[in-house]
């Protein structure tokens, strides 16, 4: 499982950033980036199947647990290789590594997903595509939007 983004819906309000920081003691793992004046994209851990961060982590702190790219803080040496290896720039280090833990222990699931005012984040990989298909099906059937 990971958190997926419907880019059509993101309004760049940064709620996910503040929520993530709030539930992780001030260390946020999601970042909203503005693309020109036309779009905003929240960037966060993809929980890659073959995760670069786990491959370079010699201490075994970053590792795969099923689909999740998990992090064992006890084993982290703070070397920073993971931050270099992550192609999305979403693993970062100060003294230790920080990354999305999908709000482990939070019964209701990831805070960013719950708090997103625009319903742009979900754990359903298919959702954005399904919404797009439904919109186009409707447009075809009704002869366009307008």
């Amino acid at each position: 499982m990971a958190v997926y983004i419907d880019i059509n819906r993101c309004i760049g309000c940064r709620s996910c950033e503040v929520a993530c920081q709030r539930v992780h003691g001030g260390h946020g793992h999601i970042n909203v980036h503005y693309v020109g004046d036309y779009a905003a994209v929240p960037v966060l851990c993809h929980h890659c199947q073959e995760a670069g961060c786990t491959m370079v982590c010699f201490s075994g702190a970053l590792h795969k647990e099923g689909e999740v790219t998990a992090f064992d803080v006890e084993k982290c040496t703070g070397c920073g290789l993971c931050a270099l290896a992550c192609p999305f720039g979403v693993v970062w280090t100060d003294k230790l590594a920080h990354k999305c833990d999908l709000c482990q222990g939070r019964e209701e699931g990831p805070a960013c997903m719950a708090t997103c005012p625009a319903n742009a984040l979900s754990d359903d990989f298919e959702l954005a595509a399904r919404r797009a298909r439904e919109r186009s099906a409707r447009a075809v059937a009704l002869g366009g939007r307008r």
Partner: protein
Amino acid sequence: MTKVLVPTVCPYCGAGCGFYIAVEKEKASGIEYMPDHPVSQGALCAKGNAALEILCHPERLVSPLKRRGEGWVRISWPEAMDLVARGLSQAKKKHGPRSLAFLSSSKCSNEDNYLMQKLARLLGSPHIDNCARLCHSPSVVGLNRTLGAAGMTNPIPDIASSRCIFIIGSNLAENHPVISRWIHRAKDQGATVIVADPRATPTSWMADIFLQLEPGTDVALLNGMAHVIIKEGLINRDYIDRSTRGFEALAEAVKEATAERTAEITGVAAEDIVHAARAYAKSPASSILYSMGITQHSTGTDNVQAVSNLALICGQLGRPGTGVMPLRGQNNVQGACDMGALAEFYPGYKKAADPKTIQYFSAAWSVHDLPLGPGLTATEMIEAAAAGTIKAMYIMGEDPANSDPCSENVRQALESLDFLVVQDIFMTATAQLADVVLPGAVWAEKEGSFTNTERRVQWSHKAIEPPGVARSDGEIICDVARSMGLQFDYPHAASVLDEINRTVPQYAGITRERLDAGSIAWPCPNADHPGTPILHCSGFNLADGRASIVPVAFRPAAEAASSDYPLILTTGRVAVHHNAGSMTRRSPSLISREPDLYVEMNREDAAALDVQDGDEVKITTIRGETAAIARLGDRVKKGVVFMPFHFPGTNILTTETTDREARIPEFKVCACNISRRD
């Protein structure tokens, strides 16, 4: 360790999102979302997520203070009450009750506002107002006149069933973020979204049709759309005949407002105007959402009436998915107005100038000599203070020294008062000017009802105690009243709501007990009434049950670009800040995301001035100057610049010119000049 979840209503915008405060050992330990909330469904924006940061903020006011020289000394509550009673009484005795003015707060509960206006009026002063004056007073005037009720006509979730959503003068994606989920839901069902705004914003990202009009040309645009709708026969003739009056006059008034003519004035392509007009008129259910971009103009009331006209000629009212929706900016602007914290209305929108109103409240409050209004509005109070006719003011939860236009004049006016008492949670710019400062409580530290932008009344519970010896605002007002010799026996907020149930007909059935089971939308005339989520389903609360179509002519904004001031400055909000910023600028996770005052400029304008992205620039208007960081882009058109008003610098620049009826200042248009600072 036991953890209790206390349900509260978010203290920021008017959407009225709910969340729980987790309380452990009498401390607020966190926020839990509220998935079953009818509006927010568990979502919260950045400000909501950061709300707890102001609870134990080190700068909170924790004790009453009195001025001594340049500094402050802590005093006890009895001494504070003594000083306040003396200050207000002296002015009253020397200059009469009309030398007193009161500013109530759209951040405070219905009960607090009810008490504040009652205090003002029992002391004999008609001068009570709240900062709705600076945001939605044209909606109160305009919508009362055209539709007979000043409120959002349909609930927020209802937007999902709209088939065409016309957003004009509102950047709701940043200012009321949760509303965007309902808009997206409508879009999923095939709805067309039209956005009219001088700026491209995250709201216009949602648009199918984006009308980037020149600031201050809203009436022209709306009249132009009405022209197209009438010309193409897209009006709802049945509805016009059955439910309105005044259509013929409008048809005559917009005869010349062709799409081409409108295009010249507004800068919007004629075909887009036609396109938008058709989409709005043809859809089976269209709604109009508007906000400060409509109201904060010298033509604010006209703008609101032009919005109403459009809805009325198309019959887009009184059904699910339709409506006219003024989006309120603060958690209780709607409630503060409902409670009569307004110069021209007693509670329940009973006209202050009507002797019957005075009779009604004299009986209800068992008093005589209630002042006949209208009193001075918030902006007029400041002028009167400067002119010396207002001698003493009691300001609760408002920061006019920051939030009013031309703030240097405001500062001088407040300094010239004989006595100023400010009740707030932080030492705001206004509190700095006071003789006595009283420490109030934030939403989580008191209980009470709040009315969100949809007229939905919700009860917010007390989670924790206020810091130091700070007290709930209702308690403080009652104490001030008693120290002035008035009978104010309200042991708790519920007892005030009890009186509201008896005196405000719209709230008659919204009792404390019922609010435990959930929210209720006013009007709710009795305890068995379910409330009224959608207004105007069967006629209007005006003569013959008909709405009024009131033609309005386009008038340009008060200030136009000139050779000395060649750029048009418009102001607004950003997602991570709120209003004058006294809360959000103190909230670490918000201020860190938007730390500086900036001015958004078009790249072409910037290039001509040799300004690069990130440069510090000086913005000058005829009233003053301020510094800001230049932010370049294509969000604003050439000739237009934008500044957020959350920082003290912005309102040094804005104009004091007001709407002639609603007295709202024209925050959205003024002429300015920009230069590099070096």
